[in-house]
């Protein structure tokens, strides 16, 4: 065992990267839930995003186009969920599970010819001299662009929800869809757009795993990250900045257990590997006391009756 092999600066830099898939997916799901919809299909949208992004990046040679494709793929799958829950008025829990089961199958099918392929590498953003600052340089200024996009998206979602009329309408629809409808807002349209936004971000989160974290394609490679993202939204009490905090916390745990595995700690690998899931449960338990922050219409089906 050699704990000295773990470099704290590299650990922090790596945890930011480990957190990004969860961060993207949870930010998207936060918007979906704030509009009053519970989409349990995050895992399915992520894995479909992971293969779409991977395949397109390999075919075009451009990781950035891959990420765009991942967003499109995730959004397209989420549109199925929107059809089920907003048009066919199906139960949101069941539809979300269906989306995940379907997405896992679809991604495996799409990914058959990509097993073992190496994707093009995404370069880091060039901050010039900033990257050479001791400690701060490697932590803050030596990452790929998508990581920064993730953080910017959190800020954008926060600002939109807090400061803009669009955000106010979104919150209103999530809080009380009947009242929003009575005031003349298009509940179904707003929710559908929110669901697609969530799908796009989940897709990007998935692609971050297959293109940057791992980087290669294996079936079921998201391994529950989508579910952790769902837990994170609860953990964050539906607040964007807390999603960031939570994502970095989980990223830290994931990265730490990977480093401990690498360092050959006396704990068996399997027990280290189950730790992120167990910690998710523990965090859920601690925070489930406060449900008051949940949007009022979350998970309820809306039908405009006369």
């Amino acid at each position, binding site marked *: 065992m050699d704990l000295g092999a773990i470099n704290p600066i590299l650990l922090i830099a790596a945890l930011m990267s480990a957190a990004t898939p969860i961060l993207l997916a949870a930010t998207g799901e936060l918007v979906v839930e704030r509009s009053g919809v519970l989409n349990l299909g995050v895992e399915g949208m992520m894995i479909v995003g992971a293969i779409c992004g991977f395949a397109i990046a390999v075919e075009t040679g451009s990781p950035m186009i891959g990420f765009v494709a991942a967003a499109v793929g995730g959004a397209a799958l989420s549109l199925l969920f929107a059809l089920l829950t907003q048009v066919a008025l199906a139960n949101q829990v069941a539809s979300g599970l269906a989306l995940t089961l379907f997405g896992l199958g679809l991604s495996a099918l799409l990914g058959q010819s990509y097993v073992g392929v190496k994707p093009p590498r995404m370069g880091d953003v060039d901050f010039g001299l900033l990257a050479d600052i001791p400690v701060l340089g490697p932590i803050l200024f030596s990452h790929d662009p998508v990581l920064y996009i993730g953080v910017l998206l959190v800020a954008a979602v926060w600002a939109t929800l807090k400061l803009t009329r669009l955000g106010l309408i979104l919150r209103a629809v999530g*809080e009380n869809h009947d009242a929003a409808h009575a005031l003349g807002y298009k509940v179904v349209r707003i929710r559908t757009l929110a669901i697609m936004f969530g799908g796009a971000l989940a897709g990007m989160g998935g692609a971050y795993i297959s293109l940057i974290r791992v980087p290669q394609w294996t079936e079921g490679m998201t391994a529950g990250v989508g579910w952790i993202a769902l837990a994170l939204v609860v953990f964050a009490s539906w607040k964007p900045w807390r999603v960031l905090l939570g994502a970095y916390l989980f990223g830290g745990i994931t990265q730490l257990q990977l480093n401990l595995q690498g360092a050959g700690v006396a704990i068996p690998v399997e027990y280290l590997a189950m730790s992120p899931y167990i910690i998710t449960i523990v965090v859920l338990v601690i925070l489930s006391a406060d449900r008051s922050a949940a949007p009022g219409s979350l998970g309820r089906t809306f039908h405009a009756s*006369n």
Partner: protein
Amino acid sequence: MTPLLSLSGLTKAYPGVIANDDVSLQIAAGEVHALLGENGAGKSTLVKMIYGLVKPDQGEMQMHGAPFAPAEPRAARAAGVGMVFQHFSLFDALTVAENIALGMENAPKLRDLSEQIRQVSDTYGLPLAPNRVVGDLSAGERQRVEIIRCLLQDPKLLIMDEPTSVLTPQEVQILFETLRKLSADGTAILYISHKLEEIRALCDTATILRLGRVVGTCVPRDTTARDMAEMMVGKVLATPTRAGVEPGEIVLALNKLSLPSPSAFGMPLREISLELRRGEILGIGGVAGNGQDELLAALSGETPAPVGMVQFQGADIATLGPNARRKQGLLAAPEERLGHAAAPDMSLTENAMLTGAVRERLDRGGFLNWPAARGFAERIISAFDVRTPGPANAARSLSGGNLQKFVIGREVLQRPEVLVVNQPTWGVDASAAAAIRQALLDLATGGAAVIVISQDLDELMEIADRFAALNEGRLSAPQPTKGLSVEQIGLMMGGAHGMEVAHV
């Protein structure tokens, strides 16, 4: 002079019902126009057409002589129509200012809007703090949010749907002052109600609807309440009767019943004490949201209480659950018919089983006797004249009045010692309401005790022996209903809520 709004020949049909049939009326600027009718007469459908929520099948509307056909509420608001809903279209978790911004087309920045809210609320005597969270407001204050939301749009026509059902008498007076001021400034008001005295006090003209048709118009000040009632109902209803009964021994006693609030926007119960005797009806009034649901849950056993706070026939039942209380004879009928008193998608037989299992012996060692439950449901249906093809029909297929008769009948037929009902006739047509009230009176005459929780003061004055009011989770000391004045009742209900803000 062309009227502000004129409706001619409006017709709207839904499967199985014609909600509006050839309805015409005219409203002039500054006029306070009453739309009078029973539940189900078509008042709501009519105003929804004016507000752009529903499109008429036939007929046309004109505003200032020009055709008016709003495709959605936004268009109606742009044309100067404001509406205060009966069930508020408010968002509990948002602030007053945010709620108001959502109802405006071009909402200014929140800071400017807050300033405007303060101005309007001063001008019209409607005190309201812009940055409070709506979920914490009283019903009267919530109504003010809706009214100010409309006023900020500078409406030419303000539609008020049953505005006084959530107010104390004092708050009603404040509202009327505001409406008179508005009318004097030239705003027309379409005032929907079934309360005749209010209409006589406030309105210039009244249009009376029955079963979707206009059955008459009148000048309320010159018409007796009785004449208007006859036009509205179509026949003179028998007032409920009861033989005078001397109250018997105490059957139910609450001893400083206190419970925490069940949810973020619920109401705690605070030291409620009362004694209920056999043969009496205790009426509990109060504005919605002051602890009515919580009190019913504490009595039915849905929320158990600490030891010693609830005594039934001399025994402590505070910690017992609903079925144990039913077994002893304490029954209840909650306000919310669909989802609380009855399961919407389940048949009437299954709904009869829901509360009847214990006392009707439909449950033998855990196994359910469905034929007997069906028999029980059939007995309820015939004894309470529930209109339905049969007990196999789902609860949600029944009209509000019929389902309410079923729910009340289900408890009454189980021969309760004490029956607690919440809003027994809310949203129920007049004949069903009369039948329900008569059943409650008969129950008391037979020696049971009844607690009627209701927001309809007229109803309570009509059937209750004693009256008490819930305010902020506290219960006032019960008073005999005979000789109780409106002012006294209003004070028991807490006077005018939230007026202190005005004097900041």
